[in-house]
């Protein structure tokens, strides 16, 4: 065994109303290592980080720093105890100078006043220390995100050099910037800093990390040396294999494959958006369900948003019913028969203080404009029809939508788009966080809609679900569409998993 861990967590537990986010998780971090924290969405990664940084208080378990039990009451206490965090969206003040961002809250002072010269001098030394040649008196926002990230690391290390948590630092960096970051990380590691690295990019994890801890559903799946666990094994440990039980829900057998005939409703050709998704091709025919598989953060949502005009593409072409189209806004997409159920129901989907009825008619009403209202009778008819069809509970159209459960909220969202009679329905994680009954109902609905001729783009992290519904599966990895696999009856979750892990076109 090596030396004593700098940070050790034993049996940590964190509950939220109705959910156990962390259930007895153990975790060790040694000085001078880069350690990856791996897990799918909901595995408990961010909860664990927030417990370590004092944003959340744990409900049980112990945290030891260098052998001493500690209680982390807040971000400031975490920093004082020697744990610093750098987040994906740089948490510094863009309006202040680089030097101030490094030193704010602990500026060098002389006679009670801030000693600017000393602060600049020391900040310059620190940034030079990681081979960064920048003017520390310039405001932070005059530099790229990558440089800002490095400045955040400089601050974090200088505040407390023991444990450095990097929460998805590479998401918005390009290749060269990632290399620069890794150089800095290696140097800090060699100086004895323990680094906890969270990333969705498997290649990066394998490039930089010595060990990894895998979480699944709030439990510890295992602790491994990177060299001992290959990518396929890692992905299967992250996703887990116990999903087989769900198979019984969809009626068991895979659906009949329809022949890939007819004209595509939508064709994407090298469609891309910088920093979101690399150029990809995709065509979807009426009656076809295309699944998008990939780990969280692999670019699934980003790819879909381009097809809905929620984000603008900056390369490639999009054809809708054969005609080259530029979608400037969701409104453009809706007018062409596209609908999009966002994965963030609360922030991007529902208007919480409006009623079920109002939420259901919202998209249709928006398309008609405010001068052509749907009559109350028509609204009630739509609401009641879909409340019944989807078994939305409570069945009261005048209930406030924010008081509904997750599954029922998802059904309201579906109903909202279905009354617009779309030709292409994009569903982003429609079954996440909802109970198993509602999940099966939604899956059945999707299958029926496709049989009736609707094109569906179905995004889900659950491979079983994707395979049960889709005619074809697009696999994304690291913001790239690495493969499109025909679901010919022989496609297995294991093969999709292998594709996610290896990125190969096989």
């Amino acid at each position, binding site marked *: 065994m090596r030396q004593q861990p700098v940070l050790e967590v034993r049996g940590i537990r964190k509950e939220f109303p109705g959910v156990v986010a962390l259930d007895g998780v153990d975790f060790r971090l040694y000085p001078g290592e880069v350690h990856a924290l791996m897990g799918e969405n909901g595995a408990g990664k961010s909860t664990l980080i927030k417990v370590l940084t004092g944003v959340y208080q744990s409900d049980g378990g112990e945290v030891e720093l260098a052998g001493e039990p500690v209680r982390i009451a807040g*971000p400031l206490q975490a920093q004082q105890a020697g744990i610093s965090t750098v987040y994906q969206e740089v*948490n*510094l*003040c*863009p309006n202040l100078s680089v030097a101030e961002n490094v030193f*704010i809250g602990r500026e060098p002072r002389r006679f009670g006043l*801030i000693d600017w010269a000393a602060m600049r001098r020391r900040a310059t030394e620190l940034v030079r220390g990681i081979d960064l040649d*920048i003017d520390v008196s310039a*405001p932070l926002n005059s530099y790229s995100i990558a440089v800002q990230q490095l400045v955040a690391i400089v*601050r974090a290390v200088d505040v407390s050099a023991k444990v450095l948590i990097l929460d998805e630092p590479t998401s918005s960096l390009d290749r060269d910037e990632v290399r620069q970051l890794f150089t800095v990380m290696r140097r800090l590691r060699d100086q004895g800093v323990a680094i906890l690295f969270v990333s969705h990019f498997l290649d990066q994890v394998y490039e930089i990390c010595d060990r990894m801890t895998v979480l699944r559903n709030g439990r510890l799946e295992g602790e491994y040396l990177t060299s001992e666990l290959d990518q396929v094994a890692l992905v299967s440990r992250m996703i887990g294999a116990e999903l087989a039980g769900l198979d019984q829900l969809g009626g068991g057998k895979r659906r009949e494959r329809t022949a890939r005939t007819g004209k595509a409703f939508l064709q994407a050709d090298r469609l891309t958006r910088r920093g979101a998704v690399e150029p990809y091709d995709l065509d979807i025919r009426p009656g076809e369900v295309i699944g998008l598989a990939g780990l969280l953060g692999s670019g699934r949502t980003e790819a879909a948003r381009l097809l809905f005009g929620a984000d603008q593409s900056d390369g490639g072409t999009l054809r809708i019913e054969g005609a080259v189209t530029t979608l400037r806004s969701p409104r453009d997409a809706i007018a062409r028969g596209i609908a999009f159920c966002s994965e963030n129901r609360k922030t991007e989907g529902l208007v919480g203080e409006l009623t079920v009825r109002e939420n259901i008619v919202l998209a249709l009403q928006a398309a008609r404009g405010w001068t052509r209202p749907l009559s109350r009778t028509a609204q009630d008819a739509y609401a009641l029809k879909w409340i019944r069809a989807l078994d939305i509970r409570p069945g009261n159209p005048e209930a406030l939508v924010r008081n509904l459960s997750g599954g029922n909220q998802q059904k309201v969202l579906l109903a909202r788009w279905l009354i617009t009679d779309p030709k292409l329905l994009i569903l982003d994680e429609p079954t996440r966080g909802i109970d198993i009954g509602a999940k099966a109902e939604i899956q059945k609905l999707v299958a029926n809609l496709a049989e009736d001729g609707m094109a569906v783009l179905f995004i889900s992290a659950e491979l079983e679900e994707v395979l049960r519904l889709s005619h074809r599966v697009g696999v994304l990895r690291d913001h790239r569409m690495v493969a499109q696999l025909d679901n010919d009856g022989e496609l297995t979750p294991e093969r999709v998993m292998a594709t996610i892990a290896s990125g190969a076109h096989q």
Partner: protein
Amino acid sequence: MNAHALLTRLRGQIPLLVTAVLLVSMFSVGSVQYEGFFSGQVVLNLLIDNAFLLVVAVGMTFVVLTGGIDLSVGAVVALSTMVSAWLVEQHGWPPLLVIPLVLLMGTAGGWLMGWIIHVFEIQPFIVTLAGMFLARGLCYTISVESISITDPQYTAMAQTRIPLGDLFVSPSALIALLLVAAGFVVLHYTRFGRNVYALGGSEQSALLMGLPVQRTKTGVYAISGFCSALGGVLLTFYMLSGYGLHAVGLELDAIAAVVIGGTLLTGGSGYLLGTLLGVLVLGLIQTVISFQGTLSSWWTRIVIGALLFVFIVLQRLITARRR
């Protein structure tokens, strides 16, 4: 990248530069147009006549730098004049006791508003709006009429002229300038001051960096309350009366001075020096209009409004390009 950094830094200074150019050109045009305009005393008079506005604007700058706003300043100024006049004239309290008391009252009121804003997460404008109602209303509970001040110490302050060569300034103008200097030191050379900027840059980040967000936020409103009370004290020196209708609309002038001085209304960027220039621009507009003679006083408001429009759109363009 260095050229880019330089450009970014310069872009942040555009409003300040525009204000400085505006000030110089207004003064030059005035000097050419009107006889007796080009004199040191005209400049000093700007300070003398606007000392209380400058003091209030200093407090407003602190608040705006955090991304907040304080609509109560005019009312607190009025309340301070009223309380001073009432205690000194009708109760015979000594001014040396009354003035600290008034300053303490303003500070406490500001602190309370800041506390409500932070703890209950209510928008600053609505809390300070309530503060404004309350302060104006309290004026009238003291008296609906104006109370004039005849206390010798107040009249002495009103009449004292501190000679500067051939020219002179009033004690109030000096107090205001001292406050600007003190404010500058606090903003640039203390941790509290830097926390003010950090808060305006990103409250979320300030919290995660472990900065004392609550103390800073309540602090700026307390400072604004103190400055308003001090502004009220200076106004009693100037007007020699306490009145509930003193300083009506002063909050707008103060905000205008801060904006014209180049402080971003979204917070995080700006200078007290800019606010000083902003106050001088506002004063100069009034001076030009009074020298002009045929233009009526309401042109002041129109010109201030037009300047506000230009500067707000300018700010918007600058921040939009930065993203």
